[in-house]
């Protein structure tokens, strides 16, 4: 299991879009581009580290105030532009360390910034835009809630450098009063605790795990393979529905999230019984 390097997001953004710089007026930590996919175009977005960023707690691949509002603005832009047209797919390339942990961020209400980005992605999905998250590296906590977790389809690389989790390992161990070793051991039997993307796949939240031989150095051939997978996910998402219901439909979800399914079914029957 690898530490966060913050390299992969940019590498895959460049591979999939052929571009490598922010749009005018945006911080250097958010890359946005429209690039061909299949017969049409998609909007790609990615958060990358910027060691010179204005906010000191958001320089290493964290999603901070500027990143969140920039993502939100760039996604709303697509919704506006496509209001009367075919809904452009939106691809969130995800390699985020976490949300930014800083006093400036709290004072200026990062909770609202993060909500605004999630609002934009969720609104795009509900408006009929296929929203796809491609997890190429880390997808941690509030960083993932802000950038990627509102997608209708989530793809992730089947690779030891990929980590999707509620909190990074050291902090989670500290807060639950465990050692990192005992946390890792628990993760082997309790799927939601695991830091391994294959265990994450058992939760049924992923559309697909993608095999990529060298995620740090994508070849043209592998880039095309990933593009094809994205295209298939886009076409699948277009069929709707535009909520997140599909996350409960996979065989894995039916196995691991039985408590969710039971809760939903019971609550619904009691809700209806009284009306």
């Amino acid at each position, binding site marked *: 299991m690898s530490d966060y390097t913050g390299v992969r997001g940019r590498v895959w953004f460049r591979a999939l879009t052929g571009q490598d710089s922010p749009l005018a007026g945006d911080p250097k930590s958010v890359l946005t581009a429209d690039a061909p996919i299949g017969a049409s175009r998609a909007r790609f977005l990615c958060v990358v580290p910027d060691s010179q960023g204005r906010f000191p*707690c958001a320089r290493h691949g964290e999603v901070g105030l*500027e990143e969140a*509002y920039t993502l*939100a*603005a760039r996604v*709303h832009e697509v919704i506006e532009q496509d209001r009367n047209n075919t809904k452009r797919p939106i691809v969130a390339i995800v390699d985020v360390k976490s*949300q930014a*942990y*800083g*006093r*400036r961020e*709290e*004072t*200026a209400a*990062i*909770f*609202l910034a*993060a*909500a*605004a*980005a*999630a*609002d*934009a992605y*969720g609104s795009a999905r*509900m408006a009929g835009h296929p929203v796809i998250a491609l997890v190429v590296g880390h997808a941690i*906590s*509030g960083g993932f*809630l802000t950038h990627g*977790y*509102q997608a209708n389809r989530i793809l992730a690389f089947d690779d030891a450098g990929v980590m*999707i*989790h*509620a*909190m990074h390992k050291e*902090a*989670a161990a500290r*807060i639950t009063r465990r050692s990192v070793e005992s946390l890792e051991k628990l993760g082997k039997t*309790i*799927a*939601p*605790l*695991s830091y391994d993307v294959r265990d*994450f796949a058992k939760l049924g*939240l992923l559309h697909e795990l993608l095999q990529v031989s060298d995620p740090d150095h994508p070849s043209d051939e592998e880039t095309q393979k990933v593009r094809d997978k994205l295209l298939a996910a886009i076409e699948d998402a277009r069929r709707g529905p535009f*909520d*997140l219901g599909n*996350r409960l439909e996979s065989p894995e979800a039916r196995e691991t*999230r*039985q*408590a*969710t399914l*039971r*809760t*939903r079914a019971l*609550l*619904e029957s*009691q*809700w209806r019984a*009284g009306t």
Partner: protein
Amino acid sequence: MSAARDDVAFINRRSFIELHARERASTLFDVGTARELLGPFDRVESPWLPLQGVTPQSDDGCVVMKGKIAGRAVVVVALEGAFQGGSLGEVSGAKLTAALDLARADSEQGIPTAAVMLLETGGVRLQEANLGLAAIAEIMASILGLRRYAPVISVVAGTVGCFGGMSLAAGLSSYIVMTREARLGLNGPEVIEQESGIDEFDSSDRSLIWAINGGEQRHAMGLADVLVDDDSEQIGGAIRQLIEQGVPTQHRSSQAAFYRERIRALDPSRQFDPKDLRATWHAGVLAEAGK
């Protein structure tokens, strides 16, 4: 909200903060209309806590009640801060999401059904880690789904406050109601101190915490809609009024361009003074309201 605290009213007020989740929820409804759904006797508990030697609770710390407020259909979901810090696990998360989805379904069928979330929570329950985070993503999606039809109201009364992923849920709400005792933020002070050091945030500095995350500050900055006393009557009144007000013309979390400009105007070379920021943003709130 008037903060008039004449002595008699102050002595006779009924504290909301001192109530548990179930009492908090039931106190909001029109008399005789509330019905708890998936209550403790249904015994739908966390399947993950016992595996880790943690005793589950038969309502998983989440109370769902349906009934009427001001004569209108409403579902209230209350998180119990006294159980695992109000954290969201698989079951409590599924209860909240399902309640929002059912309110949306009824709203689509012509029975507008508002949702009130009583949030006392630190966010994801780390013993259920990835299923807690997934649940919060789904709660957020369900808030977005419902709030087009009926208001979603978040109440942060205290004393746990609302932190972590659930602060995003509050951020997506149509309205936020807070007391002065309540705190709202993404990262709690302890987490910031751990991650970024004590120079960034001294989590023992209570006045700093309330200056940043406290209800009065959030309200003055235009980030919370109503500031109330710790008084069940007043909180109930505020909720009734917001339900009658209905869906806002524009949700706060949809105003990305407006807030992006506010962030752009800041000078982050030093820490922001909460009082200065309050003054600047409050002026902006007044200007917006005057438009």
